[in-house]
């Protein structure tokens, strides 16, 4: 399955911006199930400096600066990826969740050491208290870990209402837990906070979901959760759509939470009021589109 992604971010300013430094996480990240065939980043006005690099978590990130006075900034990112999803794992073959917790705490392998970085609080993730209580219902003693994670994802899907007006990027997870409303980013943060409250490693995945009636969140950037399990590695769960991503999710980057991998982050000198618009389109390409 080949997917073509088009992500356009536009900023309009009431006053001219004379200088702007920006960091974008817009290039798809290569992983076992995803091959990046092509990617193109177009920025208007054209930046004077532009440097791609790899961040701490191995994500591709691009830094650019614009010194030309501008009232409008358009960032267009086009990517072509090939997805080769593995068959969904048998959740009941995963170890009891308590074993996952112990393995992550022991960090005896390089894998578990890396996973242990995703056990703690981070700028958008608080742990403990009501979050631990909510999570505990999915993790009865001895329950298979991935089955429990899947159950948690389903519960969030059922208990919470998708409502773009309910939250902002800074709404804390504890408030989302009470209001039971939010968007993909809130549900991902909430689920991560639940897992980490039980000392289970979980990370935040930023990306896109295929546009169409099937998925929620197809017209904007999307976010979901990856949980770590010994032998099974990192397994993705999308609580907004109640699925384990297969051939409809394009991965851009992952980190502890949104703050590590925000698609566009910038500081501008001047600008006054700003208006932003984002559009995302993900469509199948070529013969595979029959799917």
């Amino acid at each position, binding site marked *: 399955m080949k997917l073509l992604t088009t992500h356009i971010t536009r900023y309009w300013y009431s006053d001219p911006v004379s200088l702007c430094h*920006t960091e974008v996480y817009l290039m798809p990240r290569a992983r076992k199930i995803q091959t990046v065939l092509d990617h193109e980043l177009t920025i208007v006005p054209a930046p004077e400096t532009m440097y791609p690099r790899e961040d*701490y*978590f191995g994500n591709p990130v691009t830094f650019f*600066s614009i010194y030309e006075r501008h009232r409008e900034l358009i960032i267009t990112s086009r990517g072509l990826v090939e997805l080769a999803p593995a068959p969904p794992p048998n959740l009941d073959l995963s170890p009891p969740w308590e074993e996952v917790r112990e393995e992550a705490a022991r960090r005896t392998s390089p894998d578990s*050491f890396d996973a242990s970085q995703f056990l703690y609080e981070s700028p958008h993730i608080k742990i403990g208290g009501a979050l631990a209580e909510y999570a505990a219902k999915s993790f009865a003693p001895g329950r298979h870990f991935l089955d429990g994670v899947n159950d948690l994802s389903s519960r969030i899907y059922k208990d919470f209402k998708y409502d773009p007006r309910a939250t902002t990027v800074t709404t804390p997870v504890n408030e989302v837990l009470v209001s039971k409303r939010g968007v993909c980013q809130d549900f991902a943060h909430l689920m991560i906070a639940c897992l980490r409250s039980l000392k289970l490693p979980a990370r935040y995945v930023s990306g896109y979901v295929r546009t169409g009636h099937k998925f929620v969140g197809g017209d904007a950037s999307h976010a979901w959760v990856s949980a770590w399990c010994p032998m099974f590695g990192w397994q993705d769960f999308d609580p907004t759509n109640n699925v384990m991503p297969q051939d409809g999710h394009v991965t851009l980057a992952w980190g502890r939470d949104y703050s590590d991998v925000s698609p566009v982050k910038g*500081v501008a000198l001047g600008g006054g009021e700003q208006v*932003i618009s984002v559009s995302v389109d993900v469509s199948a390409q070529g013969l595979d589109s029959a799917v």
Partner: protein
Amino acid sequence: MKSTGTSPPSQADPSQLDAAWSYEAYPGFHDEVLGAGKVRPHWMALTEALTSMGHAGLAKRWQQGQRMIHDNGITYNVYGDPLTTARPWPLDPIPLVMEQTEWKNIEAAIIQRAMLFNAVLKDLYGPQELLRENRLPPELVFPNPAFLRPCWGIEPAGGTYLHMYSADLARSPDGQWWVLSDRTQTPSGAGYALENRLVTTRVLPDVFQSAHVRRLANFFQAYRDALQRLVPAQRENPRIVLLTPGPYNETYFEHAFLARYLGYTLVEGGDLTVRDCRVFLKTLGGLLPVDVIVRRQDEQFCDPLELRGDSMLGVPGLVQAVRMGNVSIANALGSGLAESPAYAAFLPGLCKHLLDEDLKLPTVATWWCGQEEPLKYVLDHLDTLVLKPTFPGARIEPIFGARLSGEEKKAVLDKVRAHPDRYVAQEQVALSTVPVWEDSRIGPRHLVLRVYAVPSENSYVVMPGGLTRISNSLDNMVVSMQSGGGSKDTWVLGDAPAPPFTLLRPATHPLEVSRATFDLPSRVADNLFWLGRYTDRMESLVRLTRAILARFQEGDAARTAGLNAGLEILAELGHLPERETPVTPEREVLAMIYDPAAANGIVSGIHRVRRVAWLLRDRISVDAWLILNQLDQQFSLAAPAEAFRVSAAQDRLNQVIITLSAFSGIVMESMTRGDGWRFLDIGRRLERATQMTDMLRHGLQTESPALGVLEAILEIADSSITYRSRYLTSLQTDLVLDLLLADEANPRSVAFQLARLKEHVDQLPNSQISIRRPQEARQALALLTAVQLADVRELGRTEDAAAAAARDALLDRLAADLSTLSETISRAYFTHAAQSRQLAAP
């Protein structure tokens, strides 16, 4: 009895400090001076001197020290209120004396620790072997807000993270030194240590000489060399700046002092900008590249793009510039990671592993509650421990177990059990004591010694001395400047007299002769401009007020007319409050002079001068600062008794005029004629022209101004003598107008100010680079021309409504145009203040 340093020692036994001073050690603690009731040998030189000078001698010498602290404006800030925050630096005249052999051990231990922390940081921001091998729990790194992931993988020049390391040391009752805490991020106090030395050597010059105290200047030279080595590639004329969070920071005085002492430009985040992944200083002359940033700002606030975005204090794009190797930062971004008190529990193992040595100086016993055994110990022994947050910056104050009530203790234990990894417990050291001079006697106080190290080629160099801080009482084991503690100079004794050496005249690195003054940050130009305006506004107001006061006492008609005109001007300029029920003018004017709360009064004006001068602390010479301090002091005295208020006010105002003249004199005589001076003078000229115009506008409103009014106006304008020597006639409106408005030879006239303004504006960078006259130059020229073309004989005609109207129109236009010129200059040169902001999250 009077005794001085040269008089024969008194009969008292020098090994018994108590003979003359009745100093007694505090039982249960190690006393630095007395051991078994006797003065320790290395203190002998100092105690002998103290004994021979006696209380009165020390008191007299100390007066000089305190004056130096005041005159040099040595202060530190207490967070909270911007105006009264700057407190005089609390220094005690009696230094802490350290013996040679003991110091050598401390020195070796501090070098070892600096190397150790450097190696730890190098690993954590690289391969993280220490975490993978569990030599340091990852829980102390991964959740730590001070672990700056954007800085991971950036190797600083020479692999050096710490360009200054410091440690707080304390001595327990058995005489052993312990490390209380390590400072790896932006260690403060080295500059205060140097100031303490400057003051103390002034107070005790003879003892300082004879005791062979080791000098500090070599240490600062080593610091400068270390920073010089950071210059990327071999760049000619590298630019090193010291980055401060600003004047409201606790140790801003120190930032300004160190910048001046080391010869670096003091900058705030807003003075810097990143272009092409290089850092530049924004100056009047344009952007100048910066090679090294000495950082006194917390690292998390250094780049709102990649680090914390909730504050715009920093420099957007800075991390990328560092990543590209285009600028070095000292201490390196990320070095605050090593500041967690929890690391202490693992240092012995880390030291053995990384340096293959035993730790030379122990840290006070430390338990990190994130591990089972230590947690159990802490829960059982909270009474004897101090509980601290694992990650500095967490809003948890240290908790002293011994001070908790039963219920409080239970609550604390619950918190620790809930999140054990967030807490660290340390044993409380019974801090040693040292004599402190207080209220003409000396008594013991607890001390903590902060020591410093900077990198040399392959190792570190330790400052032979340090900042000794003392507690505010014997019951208090917390030593902190914020909570009212004091400080001391620290004398490390050497074998032979130290050769005199000072950085102020560097011998090894002759400075390039340079006349360029274009590196003036725009922010500084802005502040200088307002300093010029405010000082001159004060002078005008004081002259006006003085003329009014003099007229309260006499009663002839002319004086009364002058008085009324003066009051009229004062009211028009907004210096007298509008009241429902008017009180007598005399009371109003006196309130304006004495009342610190009077909105547009003299006291608030002086505060304003001082506040803007404070923002320029690193730019103003010590002498000029001294003058401004005197000004502030003259008005901090309470108002005298009712009956003497008028005459006392006159004295005060006379003093202010003299003081302000001294300030102008210093500025004219000793400030380099660069852009800085130019902006100060532009401010003064603009203000003086504005004040004079306003006085003429409001004073000459009637068709035929009375003689008494003209007389008052001449007096306020300090031009009576000029008038009398020039015109042997009685006062005439047209002649007064000519002298104060159009006469370019009178340094008080509007025309004189405008002529100077035009000269200045023509010298500014914009006028230099463009063939076309920039807007501010055209406005200045138009103003000068308007005054030159004015027909004063016509305008000064009395009993003529048309002339009076023309007079009013001209003066009104001048006032408006002056205000426009001020705005144009601000827009052209000070707009650096444009706000940076985050792009909205998509």
